[in-house]
């Protein structure tokens, strides 16, 4: 019976993914390449931030040698493996560069503001950076996740030592990837604009997304009778960090906005003018609501942070909010009015379906907890 249910879920996901692919391909023709690439970009960045957030969780656990999070690490590792298919998605996303990125077009060489960095903004160097970052992402996943899976079998603490030594490198890779995504993929949409905190901003969003995805995966597995050894203390920690980083994200987002509003410099405010005035205003208000106010007030009571029922709706809200954040960052490049129609739904089916298919396969690999980790026992007892 279980196999049947699994089979049904799998069929639904495949069907959704293929339907989404068809709609997405259709939208290239019907809605135009710009719309197609904008959607591709948003979904690429969304899944990238979920995967990077999960990778960060794994790396920070090794960096701080924390014990309590060991039982949860396998979930984050599996989510981080999304970086592997995302490398291919990134390479395809390079198709967006000539369409959505004014700095990569030949006219940029004539623009006085862009001429000096036309080489940087142009497609060849852009692609090189993307390939480099994709490679580094795959490296991090290979070292941390593959080693962890292998440790399940051989029970060798040598991996733990290696992982702890690799953790700072993984953090550096993470920093590089979020910064590259911020400068190239996001602020490249308006090449005269720049903000040095964009990497930190994406980090905040990615961490929230990674936490929310981990929480959702945990809930999904528990609903299937797995991972029952996870204690309320563990879920409280996830809820607590999600709460804290809701505040951190709001702080970084508002700080960037406040500084640009205050300085009121023409070359900086164009970014926010395109995103907070006119038809985009309701979107930014909605973003503030779902990305900050709702998770904050939902998670502020102590009991709520560890409540699985509460996390069951807060985590999806956070993920939707993070998607909305990226939509709000990218889509204004298309025009002064937000677009939401069948192409967006098509892409949602395609990428959500694809990601869930990948994650379903990942959740079947290895044990649900890193059973070879020397500290699993203490982690289950919630030793800090």
């Amino acid at each position, binding site marked *: 019976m279980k196999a049947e249910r699994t089979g049904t879920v799998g069929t639904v996901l495949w069907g959704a993914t293929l339907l989404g692919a068809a709609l997405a391909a259709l939208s290239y023709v019907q809605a135009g390449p710009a719309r197609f690439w904008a959607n591709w970009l948003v979904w690429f960045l969304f899944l990238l931030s979920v995967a990077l957030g999960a990778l960060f969780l794994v790396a920070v656990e090794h960096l701080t040698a924390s014990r309590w999070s060991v039982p949860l690490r396998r979930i984050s590792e599996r989510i981080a493996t999304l970086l592997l298919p995302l490398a291919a998605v990134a390479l395809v996303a390079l198709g967006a560069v000539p369409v959505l990125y004014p700095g990569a077009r030949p006219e940029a060489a004539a623009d006085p503001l862009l001429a000096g960095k036309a080489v940087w903004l142009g497609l060849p160097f852009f692609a090189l950076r993307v390939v480099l970052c994709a490679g580094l992402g795959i490296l991090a996943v290979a070292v941390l996740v593959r080693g962890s899976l292998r440790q399940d079998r051989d029970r060798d603490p040598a991996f733990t030592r290696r992982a702890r030594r690799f953790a700072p490198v993984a953090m550096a890779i993470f920093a590089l990837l979020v910064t590259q995504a911020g400068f190239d993929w996001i602020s490249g949409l308006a090449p005269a604009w720049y903000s040095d905190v964009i990497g930190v901003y994406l980090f905040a969003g990615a961490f929230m997304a990674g936490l929310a995805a981990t929480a959702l995966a945990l809930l999904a597995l528990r609903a299937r009778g797995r991972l029952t050894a996870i204690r309320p203390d563990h879920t409280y920690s996830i809820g607590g960090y999600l709460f804290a980083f809701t505040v951190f994200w709001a702080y970084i987002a*508002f700080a960037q*906005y*406040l500084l640009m*509003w*205050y300085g*009121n410099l023409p070359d900086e405010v164009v970014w926010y003018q395109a995103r907070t005035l006119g038809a985009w205003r309701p979107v930014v208000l909605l973003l503030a609501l779902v990305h900050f106010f709702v998770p904050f007030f939902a998670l*502020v*009571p*102590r009991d709520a942070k560890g409540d699985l029922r509460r996390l069951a709706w807060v985590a999806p809200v956070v993920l939707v909010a993070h998607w909305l954040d990226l939509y709000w960052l990218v889509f204004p490049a298309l025009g002064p009015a937000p677009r939401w129609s069948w192409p967006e739904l098509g892409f949602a089916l395609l990428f959500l379906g694809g990601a869930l298919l990948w994650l379903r396969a990942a959740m079947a690999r290895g044990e649900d907890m890193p059973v070879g980790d020397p500290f699993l026992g203490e982690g289950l007892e919630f030793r800090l």
Partner: protein
Amino acid sequence: MAETFAVLGLFDHADALLAAIGKVKSQDLGGPARLEAYTPYPVHGLDRALGLRRSPLAGMVMVMGILGALFAMVMQYWMSAVDYPIVTGGKDPTSWQAFIPIMFELMVLFATFTAGLGMLLLLNRLPLFGHPVLGSRAIRSITRDRFALAVEAEGSGFDPRAAQAALEAAGAREIEWLPAPDTGPFLTAVTIQRSLAGIAAACVVAGVLTWGGVKLMPVLRPMVHMEDQPRLSAQQPSRFFPDGSGMRMPVPGTVARGYLPPPFKTPEQAAGLVNPLPRTREVLDRGRAEYQVRCAVCHGALGDGTPTLTAAYGAKPANLVAPNIRAYADGQIYGTIVLGKNAMPAYAADLPEDARWAVVHYVRALQRAQNAKDEDLP
């Protein structure tokens, strides 16, 4: 008859204390009593064992935090956009963005003081210096490394011996009877609360009185910085000048602005000047106003030389609407105003240049009005 406040049992370990609570609760203590535990540090599970309810502090802090944030927003908005709106840095006086940092800080401040003072004064009712436990032998161990379980009397009929027996059965190492205090505690939290409330009320009253007083009396010493300025005011002496006077004559040849001497010596020489002002309603209104102030007293309201002066004045002012004055050029009228003529003094000092020309326009209007032809009527 509660001469004994409580019976204290000391234990060596936290486990022993927790186990003892269960045992003592199940015993018959022979009278109304409640349990309290005293520990050198917070022991997990103790609240549950004693049946203590959760602390309401979190809710209080959240409410006060939100209140702090709202207060900060309202205060800043009222002060910056309502009471004294100023545009600084080109920002709209009603803009909210710059108010967020202070809103956050005041939220934290209100929340912190609620957490700290609320915990101490309200919930724990500390400071409290007269509590019997503070005077016991056991307190030395309690704040060091021992755990105490106290069976406290709740009313008359409390049996200390039964309590002692229950504690010993539960495994207490030492027993101590605490006598009820004979004097009331001093400097309690209640006293502090009342004092703080009194001080706050006094501050509010003083603030209202100050505000009212300041409204009634514009200048209150000692804040008179702008009054007493280290500069030379009128009629003040000065040691800088040899004659000791702060007031000086203007330098010879000083000309007031707008009052340069005219280039003509007689009104006839000014005949070539052209009236630079347009003949608009505003100019004529101004001309009328100036004329009524300066000229009508001698030349009459209608310009016909029938003034309000009495015959005792002597001189006979000119009839401005007579043909001879009508034949004057504008510049000649202007020159007469500036230099004067016969008994008429020079009005150059009383009328700035544009006022003079406005009066010229008005005089022309009077001349036409007093010599109107039929075709002038609408």
